[in-house]
């Protein structure tokens, strides 16, 4: 399968601590790849390297290559803003803009493109909300505050906001960890649909979730990549004993 995104010897340091140690991974296009591992194993750190979120953290240092369509995201002349437009991100806790309406939240990222007309925005808002199966629930109150939505709806709104920018890759950092099981199920169904159009990378500490939604799974432990394979293989017949110990719940 053609790879959309490649990590090549990724290392991340925060001051003196070495959080990610020489991780190399290939994310095939139009698939869902899960990154699993115990807390503190560096899985979120890997995810945040991909769209250069560490640029915002003083003291963080990223080395190695991250290739998006064979172009290094950390290349000398690369603008992190342009990277983030092509690689969207959904966070652990839904973070809609509280001062904006549902409509304005969805369109907020798209508007950064510059001058956009009302008709165009209407189309984007509707298609993005439909994409995340939120349209029917909110179409009559697009102008009301995003804060009036439930937690699960807010998270889907955030996904709609990310989708509206029309990225190629969507990174998800434990997107369901603050949600109840029903809301979680909806997001998982959504992830399966998103991969038709996007390459999805999801960090999760819920192994059942990784097994349910992903095509490939990477297991990280103490900042190192232990094993990377198709999800089915990882969960039924892992090559490494550490992986087996983790997925069977012997530690983590």
């Amino acid at each position, binding site marked *: 399968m053609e790879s959309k995104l490649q990590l090549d010897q990724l290392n991340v340091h925060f001051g003196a601590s070495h959080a990610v140690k020489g991780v190399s991974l290939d994310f095939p296009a139009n698939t869902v790849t899960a990154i699993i591992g115990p807390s503190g194993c560096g899985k979120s750190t890997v995810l945040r390297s991909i769209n250069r979120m560490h640029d*915002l953290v*003083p003291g963080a240092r990223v080395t190695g290559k991250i290739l998006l369509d064979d172009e290094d995201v950390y290349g000398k002349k690369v603008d992190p803003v342009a990277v983030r437009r092509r690689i969207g991100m959904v966070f652990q806790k839904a973070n809609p803009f*509280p*001062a904006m309406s549902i409509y304005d939240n969805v369109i907020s990222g798209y508007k950064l493109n510059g001058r956009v007309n009302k008709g165009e925005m209407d189309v984007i808002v509707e298609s993005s909300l439909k994409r995340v199966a939120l349209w029917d629930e909110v179409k009559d109150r697009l102008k009301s505050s995003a804060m009036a939505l439930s937690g699960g709806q807010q998270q889907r709104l955030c996904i709609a906001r990310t989708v509206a920018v029309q990225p190629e890759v969507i990174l998800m950092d434990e997107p369901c960890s603050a949600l109840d099981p029903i809301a979680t199920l909806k997001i998982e169904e959504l992830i399966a649909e998103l991969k038709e159009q996007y390459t999805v990378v999801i960090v999760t500490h819920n192994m059942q979730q990784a097994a349910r939604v992903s095509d490939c799974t990477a297991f990280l432990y103490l900042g190192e990549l232990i094993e990377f394979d198709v999800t089915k293989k990882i969960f039924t017949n892992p090559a490494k004993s550490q992986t087996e110990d983790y997925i069977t719940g012997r530690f983590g």
Partner: protein
Amino acid sequence: MSEPVSLIDTRVVKGDLLFKWIIFSLAAAVLLILLVMVVAMVRESLPSIRQFGAKFIVGREWDAVKGDFGALDFLYGSVISSVLALLLATPLSVGAALFITEIAPRRVGEIIAPIIELLAAIPSVIYGLWGVLVMAPWLQQSIQPWLIEHLGFLPFFQGAPYGVSMLAAVFILMIMVIPIITSITKEVLMAVPVSQKEAAYALGATRWEMFRMALIPYARSGVLGAVILGLGRAIGETMAVTMVIGNTPQISLSLLAPGYTMPSVIANEFAETTSKLHSSALMEIGLILLVVTLIINALARLLIWSVTRGDTGARA
């Protein structure tokens, strides 16, 4: 086996109770002082309130000899000087706060912030002294002639350059409220959750776009609170304004003309009141000032509180 100890130790309970009442009465005393002050001011203002009624607020006559008192000129002076000072100070302060919290390296911000806050600790008489000895002559010699020459067609910049003027009061007040607005805005900006900033950045926002999308809307009401708190400070400021505004009761559109404010007239006239009615009229101005500043402060605290306790933040 020893005797079972009673769970009720009367000595400790009594001690706690006494302590509680001491603390309570100390706290109550503070409120009591405020109450006594308001009651005294109302009582002292009564002759003036009875005599002039609403005319006190809309009247422009201030004649101690004839015993005719209307406070409109002072109200006008207070409102105009404070509001203009805030219009100038707000962008400067918000800019400074954004620089300290978001742009400057942490070390630099940690040095600049206390220096700005130190400005608030300078006694206002020193601002006044500097204003009247340094700033006013400078205004008279360079700024005001320039304004008259280039913007003199506007009613705001007409007349002769006196130095001491409404403009001087506006500048002095602007300098005096900048530290307050800056330090509170800084607190409010720091209370904005990182998740909000990340949301904007992850959508591909530049730093400026992040300010506009995430930071400013979230902090909006708190910044407004900071500005209103600055207004409360500006409207009550006495010494520095009295020294530079020229103390002439008049309503002039021109900022180059001298004016007069409510605190200034109280400070200038209380020692030489000519009649019971005169001191009562001054007391009524004081009462108006007190009520206005109390309302302003309450409103400001409410707005700031709504941001810093995270009320507008994301609820799961």
